[in-house]
């Protein structure tokens, strides 16, 4: 606590150099070291503060809510306290808008004096958050969904810890499964924006390395309503399988159109997990049957840890947890463990603790790469099947890829 207090008192006078401020923080922590010093700077200093910079309105609202729900579940299991201190949760809506994202991040850091930032959902917002978080260097950033690898690749931000996934992990590892189990030739279909392009490139690279052939690439603008022209191109490619990256409303429109046009009878649909996720499957329904995807968490994943998690989640919130809830839950685990281990919230000490941390997640064993702060976790290949009651559809895990890590993006300590 004290470290933060000292750091802040200098923040208006030190000029920009985050290094010097970080040193001050470190020295402050070394001198103070206890919670006592921090208390004099206002009531917010009592207890811990976690700020959620997430979309709570708009298309991604469900994702934001799920992350908070997951986070709350873990805290609830700890009776809302860590080290005897209460944890205050502050929600701020990014509206999935870049500028709003910067604003709320600053608000959480400066006004709410958050010890940790959890969020955001979209990568464009995450890119914009790098600067404010690194400049203030007063909080740990648990990136609970934004998957663009460049958040890490561009400067390896020190306080950034990805408790979610990166776009390499949800695309490239699927290549081997597709190549070995489905087809040696694919057509790539993707939402034509940064994240879609990245996913497509990563998959392509991996697939070609294995000897597979990419027959055609079809990009559709973000927010496409009618996919039929693109489906025509996909069909004309003559490939035996399709690898796709679409998410949210695009995923619903794409998958439904894919089946409506009868393409599911000609080729096998595969994709990153967001193509066939808990938030899209209800609207996709039977159209999604038999499609394969890759993700780091699946509600129906068969393990004791996950069953407990699902049960607890359903008890607390009603409804079953999705991947975002798991990411929120793991953010809470990482945060709580780091606070307990360092006995405070000094960000630099927490960083040291986090890089060595390993914990048991509903998705399996979880740890951070010490250089990139990227997650090292299992990835699951799933197939969409009818649920037991026959009323709806759900993902079934058919293969587990263990301890998936990914490139180091030029980060090293």
């Amino acid at each position, binding site marked *: 606590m004290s470290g933060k207090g000292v750091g802040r008192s200098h923040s208006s006078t030190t000029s920009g150099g985050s290094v010097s401020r970080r040193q001050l923080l470190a020295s402050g922590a070394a001198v103070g070291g206890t919670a006592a010093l921090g208390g004099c700077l206002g009531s917010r200093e009592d207890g811990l503060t976690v700020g959620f910079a997430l979309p709570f*309105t*708009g*298309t*991604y*609202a*469900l994702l934001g809510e799920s992350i908070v729900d997951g986070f709350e579940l873990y805290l609830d299991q700890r009776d809302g306290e860590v080290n005897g201190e209460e944890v205050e949760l502050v929600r701020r809506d990014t509206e999935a808008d870049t500028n709003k994202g910067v604003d709320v991040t600053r608000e959480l850091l400066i006004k709410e004096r958050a010890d940790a930032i959890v969020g955001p959902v979209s990568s464009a917002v995450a890119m914009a958050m790098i600067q404010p978080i690194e400049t203030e260097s007063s909080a740990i950033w648990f990136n609970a969904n934004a998957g663009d690898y460049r958040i890490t690749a561009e400067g390896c931000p020190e306080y950034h810890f990805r408790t979610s996934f990166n776009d390499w992990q949800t695309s490239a590892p699927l290549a081997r499964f597709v190549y070995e189990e489905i087809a040696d030739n694919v057509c790539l279909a993707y939402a*034509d924006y940064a994240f879609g392009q990245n996913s497509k490139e990563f998959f392509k690279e991996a697939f070609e390395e294995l000897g597979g052939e990419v027959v055609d690439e079809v*990009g*559709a*603008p973000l*927010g*496409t*309503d*009618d996919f*039929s*022209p*693109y*489906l*025509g*191109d996909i*069909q*004309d490619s003559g490939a035996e399988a399709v690898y796709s990256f679409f998410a*949210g*409303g695009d995923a*619903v*429109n794409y998958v*439904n*159109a894919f089946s*409506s*046009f*009868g393409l599911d009878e000609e080729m096998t649909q595969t994709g990153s997990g967001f193509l066939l996720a808990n*938030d*899209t499957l209800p*609207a996709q329904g039977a159209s999604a049957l038999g499609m394969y995807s890759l993700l780091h968490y699946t509600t129906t994943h068969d393990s004791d840890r996950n069953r407990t998690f699902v049960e607890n989640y359903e008890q607390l919130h009603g409804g079953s947890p999705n991947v975002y809830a798991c990411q929120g839950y793991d953010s809470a685990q990482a945060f709580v463990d780091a606070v307990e281990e360092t006995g405070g919230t000094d960000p630099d000490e927490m960083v040291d603790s986090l890089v060595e941390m390993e914990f048991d997640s509903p998705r399996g064993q979880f740890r951070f790469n010490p250089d990139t702060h990227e997650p090292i976790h299992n990835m699951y290949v799933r197939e969409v099947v009818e649920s037991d009651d026959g009323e709806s559809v759900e993902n079934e895990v058919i293969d587990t890829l263990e301890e998936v890590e990914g490139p180091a993006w030029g980060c090293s300590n």
Partner: protein
Amino acid sequence: MIESVLRATLLGLQLGMTLALIAAGLTLIFGMLDVINFAHGALYMLGAYFGTVVAGQLGSFWLALVLAPLMVGLVGAAIEIFSLRPLYDRNPLYHILLTFGVAIMIQGAIIEIWGAQSMQIPVPDLLSGSVSVGPVNYPVYWLFVLAVSTLLIAVVWLAIERSDLGILMRASAHDTEMVSALGIDVSKVFTGVFVFGAVLAGVAGVLLGGSRSVHPGMGFGIIIETFIVVVIGGLGSFRGAVYAALLIGLVTAYGALIAPTLTDLFLFAMMAIVLMAKPSGLFGATEAA
């Protein structure tokens, strides 16, 4: 290749006719009420949401197709009577701000009631699956959407061309004073036109809600596209809007085949060029003559 073109043509026609349903209201409302209705996209969105509710609660897509647009019409009536009517003697600018505010409110209400998650109107079994149209497979539902919207546009076209009401509507688009001099209650005509536009947008909402994801961003998403249609067709011209909607629908569909990223650019460039070269719209003059 032929298959792609055929598919794109079918899609273009379907896009065009559904866009025409939305644009018809926007352009008539502008022509007669002199109101740029920014809330028109929100009315379309309401149609889709009401559609999911009716289809979900009563289990009938067909009821949804009838009831949801009428519900949208009611909302339209409320908007016209309680917010637009007091403002007709004001600068049209204020209508923009007002309808902008209404659009934001509707979007907020939708999130409040239904949440932000994507939904979809369940399509009846009769309309699911695909059939072959010449060399291509095409979803039955999409053909249904094309047929229904074309039929509706044809009916509206005839009504506007032939019926007394249509003549009255066209007359008051040109000269409201003349109409009121004929002893007709202009404010009732205005309400009628607004509601009519809202119902058409609602129909489009239900129809597209069966093939597209239904989400709170769809209102503001469609409004600019509709503006492009209305501008290219000639502000206030129903015929122009229909032709322009078909044009835009086909351009969008073919554009997706050729250069998806440039399609939007091309549409806005088209809008700008028409406004500079022929502000009355590509198809506006025929009606005026």
